[in-house]
């Protein structure tokens, strides 16, 4: 059996940032487990720029952003194993993992940081009628084909879902010579960043059809086209609005799901809205000594926020290992009236610092305000000219405010128009 103070599962931006922060906080015995052949995670295939504006103050591509952390991991001599799959976490924080070189690994950890990221929602989750012709894939799969493997998976493309990956791939496929016929979005708004609609669709005259979906896929060996239709306010196709679009490829960008199989198996409480663990302000889960951060906790729109959150988790894990945790008395957080979720879901009022709450709204709002209430009493109110589901919001609860809270209190965040 191997022994480490902290085992980090996942060597993407979350895992690396958490490990580096834990090291900085004084923990030397750290091991990162990474399933892929290199550190970096999904950033390796996200070759477009726009990463790092908040964190580094410059615009980097995904691989460049990852490389900064990979260099630091090497410099700090943090151990990692690539090509290694974590299989199980036990009640006593023993991590089982496997790779071709070491075989089965049994690792006793004092603390575990979950940083497994998320995966794309597949076709099977959508129940689109039609044939099983080749040419239907997730946008991220196409991204890997084009950006890592160097080949084009199609020539005439329809994209379902206007999340950021779908938008980015609309531009990428166009740049490489494909004809992107349209992007269909089931909802009446895009969940992607506005800048991506401008620079990935508008720049190339790619139409975005809102309240529209794919209802049939045609083709025997290869996709020959799709039928799209407008949908009503209940997201049901409107009869008579169907039209056929010829294409050989359908890319799906229909949502991301935190990859929480390990989390679930060990019995950690999950939030049904985020599909990630329920955590406190240091991102500790319901299982003592197990922390979670990045897209496995909740899907982020910017990697910069993943980095910041993971540093919090890394600090939390280090404090836990070094025995610096204070006793806990929690207040819970609750998103109401337009706020879909808040992370963290609970906050220790004995915490000696400020606490930042991240939250996401359920629809687009203009000229609204976000209101924070403690046990029904307004404590913070912020005017927001624009709120959108694709853009994470945050609010800071100052420590003096926190000190005034009592155990079992409730912090509610809502949208008021």
């Amino acid at each position, binding site marked *: 059996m191997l022994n480490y103070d902290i085992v980090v599962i996942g060597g993407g931006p979350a895992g690396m940032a958490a490990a580096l922060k834990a090291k900085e906080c004084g923990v030397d015995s750290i091991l990162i487990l990474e399933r892929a052949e290199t550190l970096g995670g999904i950033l390796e295939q996200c*070759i477009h720029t*726009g990463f790092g504006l908040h964190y580094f103050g410059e615009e980097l*591509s995904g691989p460049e952003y990852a490389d900064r952390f990979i260099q630091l991991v090497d410099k700090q001599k943090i151990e990692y194993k690539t090509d290694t799959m974590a299989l199980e976490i036990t009640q006593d924080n023993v991590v089982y993992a496997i790779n071709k070189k070491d075989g089965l690994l049994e690792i006793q950890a004092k603390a575990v940081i979950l940083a497994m990221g998320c995966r794309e929602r597949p076709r099977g989750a959508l129940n689109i009628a039609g044939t099983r012709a080749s040419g239907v894939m997730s946008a991220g799969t196409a991204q890997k084909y084009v950006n890592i*493997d160097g080949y084009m998976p199609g020539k005439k493309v329809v994209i379902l879902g206007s999340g950021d990956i779908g938008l980015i791939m609309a531009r990428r496929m166009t740049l490489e010579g494909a004809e992107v016929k349209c992007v269909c979005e089931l909802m009446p708004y895009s969940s992607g*960043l506005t*800048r991506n609609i401008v*620079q990935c669709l508008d720049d190339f005259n790619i139409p975005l059809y809102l309240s529209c979906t794919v209802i049939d896929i045609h083709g025997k060996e290869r996709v020959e086209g799709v039928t799209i239709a407008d949908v009503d306010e209940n997201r049901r196709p409107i009869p008579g609005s169907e039209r056929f679009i010829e294409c050989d490829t359908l890319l799906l960008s229909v949502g991301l799901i935190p990859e929480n199989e390990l989390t679930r198996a060990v019995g950690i409480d999950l939030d049904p809205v985020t599909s990630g663990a329920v955590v406190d302000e240091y991102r500790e889960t319901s299982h003592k000594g197990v922390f979670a951060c990045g897209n496995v906790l909740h899907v982020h729109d910017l990697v910069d926020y993943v980095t910041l959150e993971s540093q919090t988790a890394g600090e939390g894990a280090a404090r836990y290992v070094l025995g610096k945790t204070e006793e806990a008395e929690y207040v819970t957080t609750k998103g109401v009236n337009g706020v879909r979720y808040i992370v963290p879901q609970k906050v220790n009022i004995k915490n000696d610092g400020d606490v930042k709450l991240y939250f996401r709204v359920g629809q687009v709002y203009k000229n609204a305000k976000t209101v924070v209430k403690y046990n029904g009493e307004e404590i913070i109110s912020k005017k927001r000219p624009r709120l959108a589901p694709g*853009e994470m919001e945050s609010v800071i609860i100052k420590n003096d405010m926190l000190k005034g809270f009592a155990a079992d209190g409730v912090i509610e965040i809502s949208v008021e128009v």
Partner: protein
Amino acid sequence: MQKNIICVACPMGCGITVEIADNGDILSVTGNTCKRGDTYARAECTNPVRSLATTVKVDGGIHNVVPCKSAGSLPKDKIMECMKVINTAEVKAPVALGDILVENILGTGINIVATNHCPAK
């Protein structure tokens, strides 16, 4: 004339209004929340530019391609032409992050640089 544009300088996506005189002079820029937004809005109304990220073929590397980007902004209407040039280029592994893969593309003064490492196979 009034032109409404959405800033792409960063993920904030600010809505910016530019007031343009009949002779093309920019009278005012409002709605931006930082200086980059002002710069972007002025450029967008006079000489729109974009950064370009794509891949270059690699001979003998662990992957077939290495990601790259323009080391500065390129004229928006030259992007597809730049893609043609980049897609005819091929470099030998190993490639290091920051290596210049295409120099002074289309005479713009902008280099195409590698954004990741690609070790030899």
